[in-house]
């Protein structure tokens, strides 16, 4: 990301004021319906278009692609204002947080120009095609094959857990281009490939999840022809690109702390609605997650400082991922616990207005976010995998014996 590349001339606080005014004028008065159904999705996409047209789709990205070159501090300020305003959930996350940064690091100028502006304007929705049914934690054991045929690859295989899969236009996928070398060294012979989901031979099956929503999908490839120019990075060297992607997925999304701060404020609203303002146990639970979000905020700013100084954030990604996913789980589990018997009710109980005007949360949202928080401890590399990485690569503890 472009920590030092800002061409923006306003101060951070001037920029913040501008963003705040724009959001006040544009954020929908009522929360949008969930994007996991088509109607809500279309509204979210329209909102993304509004954001793009305002110049706010990704303020720290190059102006050439539709960003603002605003630098890291203004990007954080934007996110803080965005969540404070209760603006809609972003929907093109795979593109914004993963593919975009990866393209800027590994992509050719042609690829950047071809894909980034559409991504930013939300004209194309991207999803991630890494996991396979038999390759979860052990990602490198992936089996989806891509065989070279002239100036195309022919792709066969299956991906799973592609988030937004049911709505996506494109997928960035890991495919095995050299099975021979992969048999000896499984991290080799993998290629990072962008695939148009409208290609013949692609079948997308939305996956119904535990709460009935369909935010994920399975994607099946049968003799799908993909132009060789869709390879990002070097052929057979996709593992490095994948690791970089996972680094973005695990590491700090600068500004995300504001989302959790908003969540904790919603929790405070819940404490008020339940009349627990003087219950020291409730205060203890509220205080615990509040402390976590403050700590996370401090850490985001520390990491931003490292990034601005050109430092390496690799060793911080796994620690960051374990912390924020546990914090997020704590927040929503605390919410359910504070709800007592109402924690077992998904819809808003008739008698109690859990939808808090100030925080624009419905009780059903809480449940949805709760399950998402559970999933976050698994996706992007399970927290167990992160603990392996922390102990072996960050702390230098001895490896486990191999079987």
């Amino acid at each position, binding site marked *: 990301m472009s920590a030092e590349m800002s061409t923006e001339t306003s101060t951070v606080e001037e920029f913040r004021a501008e963003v705040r005014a724009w959001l006040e004028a544009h954020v929908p008065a009522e929360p949008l319906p969930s994007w996991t159904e088509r109607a809500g999705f279309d509204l979210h996409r329209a909102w993304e278009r509004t954001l793009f047209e305002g110049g706010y789709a990704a303020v720290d990205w190059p102006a050439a692609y539709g960003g603002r070159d605003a630098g890291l501090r203004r990007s954080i300020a934007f996110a803080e204002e965005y969540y404070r305003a209760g603006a809609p959930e972003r929907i093109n996350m795979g593109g914004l947080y993963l593919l975009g940064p990866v393209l800027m690091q590994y992509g050719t100028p042609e690829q950047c120009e071809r894909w980034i502006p559409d991504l930013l304007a939300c004209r194309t929705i991207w999803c991630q095609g890494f996991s396979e049914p038999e390759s*979860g934690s052990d990602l490198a054991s992936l089996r989806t094959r891509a065989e070279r045929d002239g100036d195309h690859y022919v792709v066969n295989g299956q991906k799973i857990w592609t988030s937004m899969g049911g709505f996506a236009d494109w997928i960035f996928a890991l495919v095995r281009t050299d099975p021979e070398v992969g048999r000896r060294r499984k991290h080799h012979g993998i290629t990072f490939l962008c695939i148009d989901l409208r290609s013949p031979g692609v079948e997308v099956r939305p996956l119904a999840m535990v709460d009935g929503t369909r935010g994920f999908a399975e994607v099946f490839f049968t003799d799908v022809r993909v132009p060789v120019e869709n390879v990002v990075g070097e052929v057979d060297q996709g593992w490095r690109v994948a690791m970089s992607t996972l680094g973005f997925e695990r590491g700090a999304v600068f500004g995300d702390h504001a989302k959790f701060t908003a969540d904790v404020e919603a929790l405070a609203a819940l404490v008020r609605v339940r009349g627990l303002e003087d219950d020291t146990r409730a205060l203890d639970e509220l205080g615990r997650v509040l402390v976590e979000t403050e700590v996370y905020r401090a850490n985001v700013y520390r990491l931003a400082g490292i990034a601005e100084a050109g430092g390496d954030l690799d060793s911080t990604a796994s620690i960051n991922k374990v912390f924020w996913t546990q914090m997020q789980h704590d927040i929503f589990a605390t919410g359910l616990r504070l709800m007592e018997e109402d*924690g077992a009710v998904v819809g808003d109980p008739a008698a109690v207005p859990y939808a808090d005007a100030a925080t624009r949360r419905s009780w059903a949202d809480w449940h949805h976010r709760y399950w998402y928080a559970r999933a976050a401890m698994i996706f992007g590399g399970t927290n167990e995998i992160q603990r392996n990485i922390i102990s072996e690569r960050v702390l230098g503890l001895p490896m486990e014996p191999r079987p």
Partner: protein
Amino acid sequence: MTTTHPTTDERQELVRLTADLLGRHCGPEQLRERLDAGTAHTPELWGRLAETGLVSALVAEERGGAGLDPSYLSGVLVSLGEHAVPEPFLETAVVATSVLAAFPDSALAVSWLERIGAGDALVAVRLGALTPYVVHAGDADLVLDLAEDGTVRALLPADVDVTPVQALDPLRPLATVIRRGEDAGTVLGVAPAAVERARVLAVAGAACLLAGASRRLLDLTVEYVGVRRQFDRPVGSFQAVKHAIADLAVMVDMATSAALSAFDAVDEPDARRRAWAAKAYAGDAADRANVSALQLHGGIGFTWEYHLHLWLKRVMGLAASYGTTVTLRRELAVELLARTGEATER
């Protein structure tokens, strides 16, 4: 009333019988059918539970039952929990039969007992602060309303407004129940002791169901990590996975012990304390089971298609019913302070 506890052999036989019945008629496929159909209770399964004599087990012999002590059913309840049975068995066959038997002179109470014993009635139970939502109220032929002061009312569907809420666990439907006016329903009598016993039965019984459901989550997880391979070895061979499961097994084992023991002790002087503690702990164990089972299953556990979520939701629903861990343990702490404070003053 002399209570006769079952022998170990009798217990095992009853649990075996229950598990066998439920294995055939209440497997994940059958649960999924109900989910798709949008119903929890089915007359078929209830009929089978009745045929086997489980529904009428606690009904007196002269009312058509077996006249057994509740302790015969503790293991059965754990088994019902293991199978996520979507029926008001605890409410109808345990709590209602116990309460109704306290009114031998009420023809109405006797007739309901006989209907229950015959498998012809589903009963929902409202237990004051323990039941802000009443389970299976929409399916019930009768709602027994047990007030804090010991007043017991029989409410027919026409006596109440039953408003379903969208329960997290659709196979354990919840509703708010409001009497239609002060005069709605029939007062069977005022029996504080019977109501207190009903509370203990409900809380200890919920602990048994919860321990059973948690055990199923443990079993499903043990099974899955034994089969699922990553990095050329079963996921269950990784020590961190094993230890997480071991910690869960400790909690589930202890929760089961406490729940069975509390349910068997409903007529002991410290019955309330044991029931409250068992349910409070079962709630903690269930929470651990919920978190660990899903984490160790990974992605597949999140899918609607895989059946883990049936138990995830069941433990969340049960943990929030008949007193949560937070409220129960607070009441126990208050009671301990009162009890030991008195001792100090003596």
